[in-house]
């Protein structure tokens, strides 16, 4: 009898644990995320979150242990075997936009295991291009980032390309 009751309590507890966060999260999952930290050079990227959810299915593919199935990576399992989903889900919640600023380096916890944490830009690009090159998604810079005029100036490209290079390109296309 006790065993059955324990099973029931356990079952209800597990159900409660798995259902509750999923429910509360469902409302806050954005269909589109606006990525605008590189707007000085590129147009804003409207990341189609909904489309990626339908393709990838498992949230943990991108969000590691913050949401979705629990960690599988052998390195993470060492400590996070029993870690549940964390309240922070968005990339920018942990990955700093300015990882190398004087303040960020000063506050760096040198004893922490995650001392080598990527910045936001690095996390996005390594995650996105890493998966895109495996799955055959776009990997060129301008496949995702439409370059602005300022971007052309920065790369000395497009309308601001050196004359010699523009002549060369013409020749090649001919």
């Amino acid at each position: 009898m006790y065993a059955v009751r324990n099973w029931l309590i356990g079952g209800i507890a597990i159900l409660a644990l798995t259902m509750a966060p999923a429910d509360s999260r469902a409302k806050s999952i954005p269909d589109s995320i606006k990525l605008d930290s590189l707007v000085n050079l590129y147009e804003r990227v409207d990341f189609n979150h909904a489309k990626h959810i339908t393709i990838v299915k498992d949230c943990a593919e991108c969000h590691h242990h913050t949401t979705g199935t629990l960690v599988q990576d052998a390195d993470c399992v060492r400590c996070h075997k029993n870690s549940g989903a964390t309240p922070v889900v968005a990339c920018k919640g942990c990955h700093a936009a300015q990882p190398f600023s004087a303040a960020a380096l000063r506050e760096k916890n040198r004893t922490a295991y995650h001392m080598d944490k990527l910045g936001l830009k690095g996390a996005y690009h390594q995650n996105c291009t890493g998966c895109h090159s495996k799955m055959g998604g776009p990997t060129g810079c301008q496949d995702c980032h439409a370059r602005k005029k300022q971007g052309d100036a920065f790369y000395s490209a497009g309308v601001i390309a050196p004359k010699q290079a523009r002549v060369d390109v013409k020749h090649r296309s001919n």
Partner: protein
Amino acid sequence: MKRRDFLKGCMACGAAATLGVSGKAWGIGSFEGYPEGMGVLVDLTRCVGCRSCEAACNKEQHLPAPDAPFDDKSVFEEKRRPTEKAFTVVNRYDTKKEGGPGGPVYRKIQCNHCNEPACLASCFVNAYTKTKEGAVIYNSKVCVGCRNCMIACPFNVPGYSYSSALNPVVKKCIFCYDTRLKYGKPPACVEVCPQEVLTFGNRNDLLKIGRDRIKEKPDRYVDHIFGEKEVGGTSWLYLAGVNFDQVGFDTTMANEPILSNVKDFLGIVPMVLTIWPALFTGFHLLATKNKNHTNHEDGHSEQEDHKP
């Protein structure tokens, strides 16, 4: 008594000179960089060859417009090195890895900012400085354009303004010291890198991070941090997924600073210049003094001969 004093003096001078020289030599070999020295860890396994670092460097250092746009990948067809117009360049290497295709590996080149820079030691106008932040900077106002540093540099880094007819000087990466590093900010290339190939931080932290990455992913990395020990250690460090000689590194480089090759010789120079004249004048005086005692006339004529 006088003779004995002189010999004593000689002995003391000689001993001091020898001790001084050996003390200095020992000091040179053991300098491991300033404790607060910064650095950059370059992880070649992350680089996708977008050349954004080259563009950022060009703008930050106000360098002349490039010959080709910074998004032009055709530059990878040849191996480039830093020049007066580009303080950093990225090269592509087609590599092979055991048990699978290695594919292209990109390598960013710039000044590695040695702990004990050979360029600094070779510069006779003292244009170079190793700052406490780790940067090797230079004063182009005192540079006479002799190009000794270009020969001394083990990484073949300093460029030369061949385009300037009147005042050609050496040009190289200064770790964005004037505009960024001095104020605790990362260099422009680090900030722009999309893949975070470049990790900026305290050099000691970077060594720890590098070792951790190798330990965590032994299949991804070769078990070596290039620049940890090479030529006495450099502020810029490299991690790679293929053997370093496959991506253009000189793996025959000794751990000894370049300076060690010449320090024995350079250490002798002050001794030769200061001790030898005194020593041999002393010997000469002693020799002629004895002669003076035995033969007055001969001694006189000999002294005449030795007058300058």
